[in-house]
């Protein structure tokens, strides 16, 4: 059985993500795993003597864990009322690290919310979703707005179509076909990464053959900037969701080269489904 991991911090964005997860689970029969991480509060360091500090923190964390478990249980009831299979878990630590760790276990997809991030905060800290997207071992669906009637009818899949795809993409395509989605294959063409339409269409058609796509279109979309071009394309086709691969760069490589996928996660309002290339 498929497992959808739904990390939550009980925010509005997390609630939106859980809503979507419920709708997907109803369609796919997947089991839900609702997961909350009580974050270790570093700001209290130095406020007390060590002995008292440790004991206070532990009590605080246990209290928070207890509260979270009760909240998760209430959320979990929503799933049970719909006849869905759900388990709830609470842990203590660094959220994005524990979520990534869980993704390596028996998790098919992660569905999580994000507030997004920008400016210096984005450059130096980033959002939790961005960090999970970078390192998760399974596809991650990021939701940042309310989707009461979540649908996957029109999907934009953007790529150069020349990369070697991972197995995750097959799982994603199976999900999209379950929803009878039309997949709009799109290559965003910029003056700096210019490719002829003839070559692009050739790669797209080879991609469609490889994955036996049934409902799809091929588009090359020109813009001076990749992210803005993708946003415009998404608006033009009224996409319900965007699918994009990520290289998962970390450290200095990430700092200097960045990631288009992670930038999109922080900036665009359409649900994004990412997967490791």
């Amino acid at each position: 059985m498929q497992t959808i991991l739904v990390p939550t911090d009980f925010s509005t964005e997390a609630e939106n993500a859980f809503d979507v997860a419920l709708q997907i689970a109803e369609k796919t029969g997947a089991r839900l795993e609702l997961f909350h991480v009580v974050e270790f509060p570093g700001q209290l360091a130095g406020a007390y003597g060590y002995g008292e500090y440790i004991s206070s923190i532990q009590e605080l964390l246990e209290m928070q864990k207890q509260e979270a478990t009760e909240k998760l249980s209430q959320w979990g009831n929503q799933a049970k009322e719909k006849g869905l299979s759900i388990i709830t878990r609470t842990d203590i630590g660094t959220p994005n690290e524990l979520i990534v760790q869980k993704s390596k276990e028996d998790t098919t997809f992660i569905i999580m919310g994000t507030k997004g991030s920008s400016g210096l905060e984005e450059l130096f800290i980033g959002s939790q979703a961005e960090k999970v997207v970078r390192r998760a071992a399974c596809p991650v669906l990021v939701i940042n707005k309310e989707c009461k009637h979540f649908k996957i009818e029109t999907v934009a899949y953007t790529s150069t179509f020349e990369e070697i795809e991972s197995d995750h993409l097959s799982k994603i395509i199976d999900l999209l076909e379950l929803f009878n989605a039309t997949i709009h294959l799109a290559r965003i063409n910029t003056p700096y990464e210019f490719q002829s339409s003839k070559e692009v269409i050739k790669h797209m058609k080879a991609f469609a053959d490889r994955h036996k796509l049934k409902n799809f279109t091929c588009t090359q979309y020109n813009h001076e900037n990749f992210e803005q071009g993708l946003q415009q394309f998404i608006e033009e086709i009224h996409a319900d969701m965007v699918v994009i691969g990520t290289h998962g760069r970390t450290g200095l490589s990430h700092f200097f080269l960045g990631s288009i996928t992670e930038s999109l996660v922080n900036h665009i309002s359409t649900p994004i489904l990412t997967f490791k290339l």
Partner: protein
Amino acid sequence: MKILVPIDVDIASKNALKMAFKLFEQNSEAFLQVLHIEHQDRANEQELVEELRKDVLSGLHEVPHRERFNFSLQVGKPEQILEKAFEKWQPDLIVMADQEIRGWSSLIQHSQSDWVVENSSCPVIITHREDSEHNFQDILLPVTKEPGLVEALTQLSPWVNLWGSTLHLLKVSTITDFYTNLQAKEELSRMVKKHNIANYTFNYWNARDVESGIIEFASQNNIGLITLLTHKHTKLQKILGTTSLEVIHRAHKPILSFCVAR
């Protein structure tokens, strides 16, 4: 409507003749003039010329509406014959096969089809040996920086109405002349509004150059005719290559060309 079809012994002429007959049959008021031109060097080969005449006539013996059809065979310098034919018959449309002469050879030899394309005052349809079915429903109109688009659209409009065609407007982007989709769409929208174009689609294509873009798009889509604007070119320009002549010679689709002033 008067349709002039200059032909010669080349097998490519058969395709031109087929296209011309299709147009002739579609239009009950069309008049078809087939003009077989043999170069004066062959004038001495009387037997050959007579054989050709019989061959062409035998192929045409089942032509319906003989009252609206005429055939003549003339021997001499092709350009001189054609100039006189233009003056005498004042055609509304010329249909002929492509005759390509590349590079420095064009200093010595003239391509009849190039000459016609650049000197006729009416539209010219150029066919190729490889052209397959004749489809007048889907006409490609590349929107380039070449002057004369307004004039060409005015000339094209009656044909589009006659055939009930859809005009596929195309903007080709290259690495040095890059258009975003939005910019291309705005330009094409302005054009459609200005010229009251009714049945149309917008299309965008990226290629290493405009000529390749036009040819690639046409071959990958169901295009029946490629519309091109042509101008009179100097010999040097022809040696170096021009967009319109490049497309005429490289495309495996019939070309509908309009000679416009620069």
